């Protein structure tokens, strides 16, 4: 109740003084009303609680608003460059805060126990039974593990680093966790010394630790759950934001493409501009825009005949085929390069850096090529050009990342089948049917920790991207110093796609390198200040117009798509992948799936029954059917509403015509031209002068058209009872 009234008050268009008056009267009425009808204590308590809660919520929101990060910098940027560029920096800040929260979670749940484990002093009975140790003779089945319950009341010694014995028979697994020296290029490659730090999946232990008596912290469970929960959190947060933005910006935009002139005239001035220079540029923009659409309209573009239209389609199709072929070629080339790397088992740091360098250059340079190409193709509006470029860039990134993960994954899956019998491997390798036979013999020489290696690749990509980005910004700065004339523009599309690429790297690498959020957070902070500096000192505002609102939604949707794809990638790996047996929290399990069965079996048998029931084909089909039906219902509701909008719009037109007609009629009545005897004709005899809008008159909306100079509202009310009565009612209902 309280909230409804506040909102109604807020929507009323009156000066502040008037609103205060209304509120005073409202509270007076409410308190008097309350005296007449005593409310029960319970209800009074409920009201008090809800009001207090509302106040608390408001004050918390206000505090957050006061302390919002980078407020001053954002205001400066927006003032100089307008809302479009401002929206990019706001997106940057949003991602920064999101990643910071995630990084804190990761540090808390994964990093800290791992560090505690590492630094706890060595216990004398290092080989005491731990929950996951199985006798070497037993095969690793879920049933076997069920036997090993947690020893009931013993103080489990915290297992130290050195006594890390894998549960499976040890002959097949190299313990790849020997500490290495810190090499020179290790910051860049992430290999070497970093191999055994908490940066990568491989160094997280697979033990259950005891933090206090009877309290166990199972590292594998924690690892899996934390990553899973983080993905869900990301998904929910971004989904919610996409929905909110879509509701505000995109609803009904498809149905109303006609009023472009009006929109340009009334909503093109950006009220947040505060600098003279930016205002001048904006004026020029608006002038050229208006001129352009006027030309378009006046020149009356001919309807393209069939031939020209077909030609246009053909050209676009050819370009798309070329682009897709190019992407396929690129994918194959990166695959070949990766294969070569893995095949030769390169260890030298410089050679390791080659692949990330090339990939990053590709990702930064090719979109520029795309923007040039798309100009030639002949798309109609700048917005279409932007969307096409965006789609192509995203395809490029997905290709590269997909090839990376896929290559490593196939390496992992085609691992030796039997880790207990390594001496069989040389026998297996010559078989012609096994294409990776040669690799396997070499593989056992390497660290058998493919997750760590993949994590290292992601780390390298991130760092290389950062460095090359710095180099490019430096280049921009230098160029702008040299020649004042070639002032470049801040291309929002390119920067935003770059940001999305970073975020995709974060998600794709989260499982293999849990500290990616931290790295990306640090990167974003540095990038923010550098880009702000470059922006304010070297660049000019973009000359082409920018539809900021819709673009924001598109970018968030792209982020969401990347997130979902990485999530599915993980599901696939988890279901099918094989763990490496020497490292990581899941060592000791042959497949990742075994870990699930382990949890499930150990905890409850009913979960297994439920899960297996859930995945029955009938149930899945039923769920899919229900989903399809829901989607169909939603779509038909949306279409129905669109129809309704058309009908109401038509009604609006008709009502306005009615009003015009009645206005003329009343005018005639006032002038005494009207003949037939109507009961209200004597009202027209006294024309009143226009009363100035009196702020204390609370019963009329002063700006509404009925209070114009020709007719006084009181004359009007009997003739057209609907409109003004409606107005009076709505205002009176507040009093």
């Amino acid at each position, binding site marked *: 109740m309280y909230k409804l009234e506040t909102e109604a008050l*807020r*929507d009323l*268009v009156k*000066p*502040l*003084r008037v609103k205060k008056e209304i509120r005073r009267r409202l509270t007076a009425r409410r308190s008097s009303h309350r005296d007449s009808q005593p409310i029960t204590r319970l209800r009074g308590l409920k009201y008090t609680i809800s009001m207090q809660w509302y106040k608390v919520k408001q004050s918390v929101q206000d505090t957050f608003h006061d302390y919002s990060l980078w407020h001053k910098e*954002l*205001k400066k940027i*927006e003032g100089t460059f307008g*809302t479009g560029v401002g929206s990019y920096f706001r997106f940057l800040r949003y991602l920064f805060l999101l990643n910071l929260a995630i990084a804190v979670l990761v540090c808390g749940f994964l990093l800290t126990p791992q560090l505690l484990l590492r630094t706890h002093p060595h216990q004398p009975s290092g080989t005491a039974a731990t929950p996951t140790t199985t006798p070497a003779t037993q095969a690793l089945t879920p049933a076997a593990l069920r036997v090993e319950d947690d020893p009931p009341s013993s103080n489990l010694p915290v297992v130290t680093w050195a006594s890390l014995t894998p549960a499976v028979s040890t002959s097949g697994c190299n313990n790849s966790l020997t500490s290495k020296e810190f090499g020179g290029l290790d910051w860049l490659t992430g290999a070497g010394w970093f191999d055994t730090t908490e940066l990568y999946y491989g160094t997280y232990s697979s033990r259950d630790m005891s933090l206090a008596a009877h309290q166990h912290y199972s590292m594998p469970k924690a690892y899996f759950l934390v990553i899973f929960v983080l993905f869900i959190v990301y998904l929910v947060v971004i989904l919610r934001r996409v929905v909110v933005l879509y509701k*505000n*910006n*995109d609803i*009904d*935009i498809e149905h*109303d493409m*006609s*009023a*472009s*002139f*009006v*929109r340009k*005239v*009334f*909503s*093109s*001035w*950006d*009220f*947040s*501009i*505060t*600098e003279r220079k930016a*205002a*001048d540029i904006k*004026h*020029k923009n*608006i*002038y050229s825009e*208006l*001129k352009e659409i*006027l030309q378009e*309209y*006046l020149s009356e573009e001919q309807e393209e005949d069939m031939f020209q239209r077909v030609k246009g389609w053909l050209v676009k199709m050819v370009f798309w085929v070329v682009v897709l072929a190019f992407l396929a070629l690129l994918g194959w080339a990166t695959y070949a390069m990766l294969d070569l790397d893995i095949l030769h088992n390169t260890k030298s740091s410089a050679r390791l850096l080659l692949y990330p360098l090339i990939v990053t250059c590709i990702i930064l340079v090719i979109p520029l090529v795309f923007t040039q190409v798309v100009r030639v193709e002949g798309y109609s509006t700048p917005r279409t050009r932007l969307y096409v470029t965006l789609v192509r860039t995203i395809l490029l990134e997905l290709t590269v990342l997909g090839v990376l993960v896929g290559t490593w994954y196939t390496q992992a899956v085609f691992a030796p089948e039997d880790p207990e019998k390594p001496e069989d491997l040389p026998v297996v390798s010559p078989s012609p049917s096994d294409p990776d036979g040669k690799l396997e013999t070499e593989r056992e020489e390497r660290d058998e920790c493919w997750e760590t290696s993949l994590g290292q690749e992601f780390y390298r990509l991130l760092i290389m991207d950062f460095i090359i980005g710095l180099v490019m910004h430096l280049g921009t700065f230098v160029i702008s110093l040299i020649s004042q004339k070639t002032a470049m523009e801040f291309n929002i599309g390119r920067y935003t796609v770059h940001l999305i690429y970073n975020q995709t790297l974060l998600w794709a690498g989260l499982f293999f390198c849990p500290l990616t959020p931290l790295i990306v957070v640090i990167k974003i902070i540095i990038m923010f200040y550098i880009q702000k500096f470059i922006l304010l000192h070297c660049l000019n505002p973009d000359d082409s117009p920018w539809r*900021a*609102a*819709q673009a924001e939604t598109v970018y968030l949707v792209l982020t969401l798509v990347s997130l979902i794809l990485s999530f599915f990638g993980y599901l696939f790996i988890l279901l099918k992948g094989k763990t490496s047996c020497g490292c990581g929290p899941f060592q000791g399990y042959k497949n990742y799936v075994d870990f699930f069965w382990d949890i499930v079996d150990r905890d409850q048998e009913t979960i297994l029954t439920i899960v297996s029931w859930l995945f029955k084909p009938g149930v899945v089909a039923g769920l899919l059917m229900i989903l399809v039906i829901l989607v169909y219902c939603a779509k038909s509701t949306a279409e129905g509403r669109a129809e309704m909008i058309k009908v109401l*719009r038509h009604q*609006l*037109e008709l009502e*306005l*015509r009615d009003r*015009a007609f009645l206005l003329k009629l009343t005018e005639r009545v006032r002038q005494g031209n009207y003949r037939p005897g109507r009961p209200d004709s004597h009202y027209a005899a006294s024309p009143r002068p226009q009363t100035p809008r009196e*702020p204390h008159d609370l019963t009329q909306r002063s*700006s*509404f*058209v009925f*209070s*114009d*100079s020709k007719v006084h509202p009181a004359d009007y009310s009997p003739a057209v009872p609907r409109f003004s009565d409606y107005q009076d009612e709505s205002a009176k209902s507040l009093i």
Partner: protein
Amino acid sequence: MDKLLSLPELRANPFGERMCLIFSSTKDGDCTFEDFLDMMSVFSEAAPKSVKAEYAFRIFDFDGDDYLGRGDLEETITKLVSPQRFSSEDMEALVNRVLEEADLDDDGMLAFAEFEHVISKSPDFANSFRIRL
């Protein structure tokens, strides 16, 4: 009013004068604190679209007759593109186009209902009609 117009939020705004006039309670352009608060609250992010549309209508209504007539539209366009100028044929074509698109009852003027109808559908309006303090 000059002091108001020297604020960073208003100094580069071609509609700055109109804003001061609309929100001033004494109608001469000088704002009390409450008037200023009014203005900032209408331009804030949380203000509903209807309130913004209402005040936008008043700002664009230069002659104060509660209609956006041809004169108002011409004045708006002139202020938007100054220091550039449109030729008179261009200006007339523009105004005609605007009226054609938005004027539903063909009386040559935009009433508030027509204005709100066409403007609240545009997503850019809420974004551009906003001052972040």
